[in-house]
């Protein structure tokens, strides 16, 4: 089992975001996590590489218990996990090439010429050849996302975590990104966890899809199983019915509710 989340709970102040998330991602698999906005998908993702620590429960990657890792072990693990941010999170004071070189320099083991070669290869994989010296401000939204993906894959991580890779993109660019995600799996053999609320993307790229609702995974299955699910929450989301959307955010804990009403 390559990525395991076990009963992960997380609250920010009175807001209980995750209420016991349990999810497994097998080696070489692409799993999409779908859910309404505010359901805690991105928060869940950040527990996998230790950007957030759970209040209760735990996360394992490669058999290593992430919250219990020391600083050095955690940094070592992070070099095996590429992270594609929702808004790319490129360093805006650096060119695209310098952005990509950041991870390569940290990982080490390559000469400068080899690193430059790796930058070119990574940009070619996302169809951004020739964009090395551009700055993030000079790129379109889709190009920024692709540059963010190139940065994440440059140091050849074993795992890729995607945080809403297609949100805010036009349908054509969305398809391009979806194909890139599939390409990463086929050409680099990475294990991927994709956060999205775009069902078409999820069907296109996933081996399995998990539905997060009110801070818990309420269903996991293949795209066909999710498409034909009897679960009312899943059906409501898949069919785009707004009847459950207002309940989608994780409810406040009773104590916090009392605090609010007092």
């Amino acid at each position, binding site marked *: 089992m390559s990525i395991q989340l076990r009963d992960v709970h997380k609250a920010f102040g009175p807001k209980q975001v995750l209420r016991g998330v349990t999810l497994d991602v097998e080696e070489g698999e692409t799993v999409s996590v779908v859910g309404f906005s505010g359901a805690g998908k991105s928060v869940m993702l950040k527990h996998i590489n230790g950007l957030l620590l759970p209040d209760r429960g735990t996360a394992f990657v490669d058999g290593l218990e992430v919250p219990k890792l020391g600083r050095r072990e955690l940094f070592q693990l992070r*070099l095996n996990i590429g*992270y594609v941010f929702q808004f790319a999170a490129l360093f*805006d004071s650096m060119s695209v090439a310098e952005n990509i070189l950041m*991870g390569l320099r940290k990982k080490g083991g390559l000469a400068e010429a080899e690193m430059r070669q790796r930058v070119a290869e990574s940009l070619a994989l996302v169809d951004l050849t020739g964009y090395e010296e551009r700055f993030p401000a000079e790129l379109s939204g889709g190009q920024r996302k692709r540059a963010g993906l190139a940065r994440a894959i440059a*140091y050849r991580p074993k795992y890729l975590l995607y945080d809403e890779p297609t949100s805010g993109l036009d349908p054509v660019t969305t398809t391009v990104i979806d194909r890139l995600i599939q390409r990463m799996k086929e050409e680099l053999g990475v294990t991927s966890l994709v956060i999205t609320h775009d069902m078409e993307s999820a069907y296109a790229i996933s081996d399995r899809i998990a539905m997060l609702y009110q801070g818990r995974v309420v269903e996991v299955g293949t795209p066909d199983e999710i498409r034909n699910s009897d679960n009312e929450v899943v059906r409501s989301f898949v069919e785009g019915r707004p009847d459950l959307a207002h309940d989608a955010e994780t409810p406040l804990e009773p104590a916090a509710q009392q605090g609010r009403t007092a």
Partner: protein
Amino acid sequence: MNATRTLERVGTAALRGFAGFGVFSRFAAQSGRSLREASTWGPLLAGQMRKLGVNSLPIALFLSAFTGIVLALQASYTFTGAIPLYFVGTLVGKTMILELGPVLIGLALAGRVGANIAAELGTMRVSEQIDALETMAYDPVAYLVVPRVLAGMLMFPVIVILGDVVGIFCGLLTSMAMLEMSAQTFIRGLRLFYVHFDIIYSTIKCISFGLVITLVGCYQGFNTKGGAEGVGVATTRAVVISGMLILVLDAFWAATLLRS
């Protein structure tokens, strides 16, 4: 009932203040621990010294030049007929080195450097660039905070010493041109009460001001929440808090180092 509520508010504010101080202290301690990551901050130090230090020289020297001019004129106005005019040199030198050089330049740099750091790191925080550093196994404190704080502590004394030189020189030129005083007379006054401890005292103050300006700027930037509004709030806080701390530290150093 009103008294209870007032007490409750005072207690809540005090608790919030202590909690904030605790979080800031933890951030400062983390910055100290990240000094070990020399391979991360080392290559960035020279760039930050140029950005925070060298690029701040024009404003610092401009400020010092006019302070020197005004000090000379005010001293001559105050001393006329009562105190020998060579004391103009004494006053300009002592005041520039001990007080106005460090404090005025400190307050100006709290605006220029502190605001710049808070806005830059705040924008990086809200656009997830700091998270991105972490995902690539960088210690964001070693990468972003340590080089800025070290650059501030190293460059601030240099800027102030250069500012003092320019301020005193402008005071000298003003005395010669407008007060009909010779250079020898001014320099006689300048040397009259000069002791090397003045420079040591000024340098200690400058290092502490450099630390406060950069550390508060980094702390506010790192803890920015929300979007553009959050960056604005962090920037304002950085300038106001570091300005206040400069004045508090100024009084602290005077009370601890100048009492004979």
